[in-house]
């Protein structure tokens, strides 16, 4: 009994990528009503301070929305978009777990999307983070 309590007290919760993805997919399907469509949805588990980087090709003239949803363990996620030379071109300005960045490229090129788990709940371990690239 005691060992079970001890185990429960020190074991971090698992990242819930499925919950993060469900949150994101609800937003994506809602977006179809406004003419958005999805290119990619991908999931990751990130501890506080960790990030993932995704290379994307963005077409000139097309509007893009980069969206993230985190599970309950995530407090603040951030998105930063870099151009092919590494210059920051956009970032979200919110401190929540569902950031969005809208972007329209001046010319077709490759860009880097950095998704940060800036803050997780204390003792939460890794957080589930789902990222989508949508366009219209």
């Amino acid at each position, binding site marked *: 009994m005691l060992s079970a309590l001890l185990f429960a007290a020190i074991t971090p919760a698992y990242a819930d990528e499925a919950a993060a993805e469900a949150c994101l997919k609800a937003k994506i399907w809602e977006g179809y009503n406004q003419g958005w469509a999805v290119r*990619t949805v991908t999931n990751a588990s990130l501890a506080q301070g960790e990030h993932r980087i995704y290379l994307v090709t963005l077409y000139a003239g097309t509007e893009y929305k980069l969206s993230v949803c985190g599970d309950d363990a995530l407090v603040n996620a951030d998105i930063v978009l870099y151009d092919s030379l590494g210059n920051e071109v956009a970032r979200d300005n919110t401190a929540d777990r569902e950031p969005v960045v809208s972007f329209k490229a001046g010319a077709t090129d490759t860009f880097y999307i950095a998704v940060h788990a800036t803050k997780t709940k204390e003792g939460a371990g890794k957080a589930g983070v789902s990222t989508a690239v949508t366009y219209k």
Partner: protein
Amino acid sequence: MLSSVLLVGLLNLTGCSSEEKVAEVTPPVEKPVEKVPPAIGMEELKAAAENIALVPSPAEMQKALEKNGIATGLSGKVVDRPLKMDISNKDVVAVRTGVAMADALLTVKDAPPEKLVARLTTVKAGMTTLGGGTDIGATIDDINGRVTNGSVSREDLVKELDEMHGAIIPEIKFEAGDRVVPLIQAGSWLEGSNLVAAAIIDANNPTAGTELLRQPQVAEYFLKYVQTEGAGKAPDEVIGQLNSTLLKLKEIASKPTLTIDDVKEVKSQTDAVLALL
């Protein structure tokens, strides 16, 4: 912090010498909460970037074509191809599956039900040969059933196929290995690029070629997989042609602007691969 308090309390309950045990517990150091993520340098961006979102979907290519003033839909340019999936070369099956998926995506809004079902059945056959598990097959069977009995709108189907292409297939762990997903993407991208090139030639709009076909990093990404043959595998005619096509597309895509002759070369090069499928 809570966990360390509980740890100390529980150790006391067990009757151990609390002085000895407490001395072993190091209070956790509170990490400073970062309000703004730190900037990432170019070297890390290049080294750590994942390619899962790199390749535009065929439907996205169609949308970008419209944004560039070419209203011609790509669906009318899709041709029926007898894509055999019961062959031993899994790389070729993956490329063929990608082509079939692109055709289904591009014609989902207006294809006759029997043609759409046939295209999705081809995708399912490819998934089966590649060892994609039973879930994807069941999903396609379900979609085909609803297409056949007319119980799903084409608008809803667009969403479902987008999800299959952009969210479900990239996450499948194929028995045929990690090369499968990039090669499926390569098939879809080649088919989309071929149809886009045809539409640009018809419209004689090389500016659209510059905006839509200059994707050297996409060609490079696929080349990495095409040029890494499995151990002991004999080079295949399709994969050999795919390799030379991607090298040529990378060369063309590296130009600052494309001419109509460049677009014709893209069409010719992609035709050469698709003809072998």
